[in-house]
C-alpha cells in the first residue's frame, strides 16, 4: 500500500514545478526576442551616447592612420632652397676633399676674427662665416652658395703664402667673394629649372634622382675649376666694392694694391695662370677702378 503522504508529496512537487515553469516561460521568450531584434536597444544605445563614442573612436583611428601616412610621406621630402645650399656646398667639399686638399694640418691665423671685424666695419651684422683653408692652388679663393646669413669660403693656403698676405688683404679677398655670392651668380648658374622643381618636392613612390644631384655637383666643379665668372659679373662685383670701399680711402688703396699684386702673380707664376679664367681679370679690375683721366 502506498501511503497517502507519498501522493501528497508528489502532488506538491508537481504544483511547485508547474509554478516555476509558468514564471520562467515568458521571460525566456522575451530574451530570445531581444537577441534577434537589435533595433529594440538602438534607442537605449543612442541615449547612452555609445554610438557617438564609436564614431569618435573611428575618427581618432582614421586621424592616426592619416598622420602616420603623412609622417611616412614626409620622410620623402626634398629640402627646400632655405636649407639646401649649405648642405649641398658641404657635400661638394666632401666629395672633392682629395683634390682640394683641405684636410691638412694648418696654422691658426684667426682669420675668422679679422674677417668678422671687417664685415662689421662694412655694416654687415649677424653673418655666420665658415672659412676652409686648402693646400691647393686649383681654386684660389671662392665663396660657395649657402643658407641665409651663412657664408662658406674656401681659400688657398699656398696662395696666402706666395703673396705673403696680411689679414686685411685676406679679408678684402674674402669680401670680394662675399659680394659676389650675395649677387647670386653662383646660385643662378647651378640652379636650373630641373633643380628648382626638385627642391621642396616629395619623391614618395618615385625613385630618388641621384643623377640630378650628381650633375649639379658637377656644375660646382665646372664653375670653380674651368668656366669661372663672366666679365659682366666681375665688372658688377668690382664696381660694387669700389662704391663700398670708397668711404675708407686707405682700405680702397689696399684693395687696389692687392689687385696689382694678384695681377703680377698671375702674369709671372704658372701655378696661377688659370686665375684670370675664373676671375677675369685683375688687370681689367684695375682699369675699372682707376679714375679716368679727364681730357682737356
Amino acid at each position, binding site marked *: 500500500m502506498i501511503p497517502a503522504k507519498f501522493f501528497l508529496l508528489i502532488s506538491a512537487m508537481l504544483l511547485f514545478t508547474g509554478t516555476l515553469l509558468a514564471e520562467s516561460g515568458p521571460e525566456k521568450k522575451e530574451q530570445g526576442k531581444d537577441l534577434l531584434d537589435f533595433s529594440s536597444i538602438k534607442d537605449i544605445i543612442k541615449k547612452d551616447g555609445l554610438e557617438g563614442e564609436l564614431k569618435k573612436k573611428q575618427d581618432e583611428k582614421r586621424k592616426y592612420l592619416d598622420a602616420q601616412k603623412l609622417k611616412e610621406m614626409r620622410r620623402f621630402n626634398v629640402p627646400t632652397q632655405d636649407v639646401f645650399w649649405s648642405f649641398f656646398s658641404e657635400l661638394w667639399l666632401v*666629395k672633392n*676633399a682629395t683634390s682640394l686638399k683641405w684636410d691638412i694640418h694648418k696654422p691658426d*691665423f684667426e*682669420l*675668422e676674427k679679422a674677417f*668678422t671685424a671687417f664685415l662689421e666695419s662694412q655694416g654687415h651684422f*649677424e653673418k655666420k662665416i*665658415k672659412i676652409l683653408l686648402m693646400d691647393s692652388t686649383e681654386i684660389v679663393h671662392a665663396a660657395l652658395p649657402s643658407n641665409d646669413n651663412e657664408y662658406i669660403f674656401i681659400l688657398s693656403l699656398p696662395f696666402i703664402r706666395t703673396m705673403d698676405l696680411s689679414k686685411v688683404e685676406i679679408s678684402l679677398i674674402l669680401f670680394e667673394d662675399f659680394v659676389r655670392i650675395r649677387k647670386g651668380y653662383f646660385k643662378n648658374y647651378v640652379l636650373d629649372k630641373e633643380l628648382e622643381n626638385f627642391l621642396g618636392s616629395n619623391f614618395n613612390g618615385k625613385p630618388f634622382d641621384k643623377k640630378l*644631384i650628381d650633375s649639379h655637383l658637377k656644375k660646382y666643379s665646372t664653375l670653380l675649376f674651368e668656366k669661372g665668372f663672366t666679365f659682366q659679373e666681375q665688372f658688377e662685383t668690382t664696381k660694387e666694392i669700389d662704391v663700398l670701399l670708397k668711404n675708407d680711402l686707405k682700405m680702397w688703396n689696399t684693395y687696389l694694391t692687392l689687385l696689382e699684386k694678384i695681377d703680377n702673380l698671375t702674369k709671372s707664376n704658372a701655378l696661377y695662370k688659370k686665375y684670370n679664367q675664373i676671375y677675369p681679370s685683375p688687370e681689367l679690375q684695375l682699369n675699372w677702378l682707376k679714375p679716368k683721366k679727364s681730357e682737356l
Partner: protein
Amino acid sequence: MGNYSVQMESLMKRILFFTLCLFSYSAISADAVKKSMIGVKYFSEMMGNVHQNPSRYSQVLTTISCNHPVKVMKEVSKDGKEMIFFGENNWNLVTVGPYEGYVMSDYLSDKKNECFEEQYPKFFDGLNLDINDLYYWARLYDQYVQGKSKVRQ
C-alpha cells in the same frame, strides 16, 4: 713685403701656446683633478669628431652625428674649484659611450636640434654616402674656422 705676415704671427702664437701648456700641465698633477658631470648636450652639426685632446688635429676617438647626446664633464680640483686648462676654453670635455674626449663647444647645444638628416631622411639616404664621405664630413667641421659678426647695436 711691407705687410705684417700672418704666418709669423701664427708661429709666435704657437710657441706661446706650447710653453703655456707645458707650465699648465706640469703644475697640476693628474691625480689632483676629479671629473664630474655637468649635464647632457647634443651635437649640432652634420657629423663631428670626439678628440683625445682639445685640438682639432688631435687623435679622433669616435665620430658622432647630429643630435647625438654627450655627457659634458668638468674637471674639479681637490678643493672643489673648476679647472680649465690653457687651450680648453673652446672645447668641452665629454663622455660618449666608452670614450672620454673633447668636442668643440660651438658644436654642442643644450636642446635637440633640427638636423638635416632627420628632417629629410630618404633624401639623405638617397645620396648613398659611404664611410669615406662621412669621415670627411666630420673632418670638415674640424677644419672649418668659424665666426659670426656681432649684432647691430
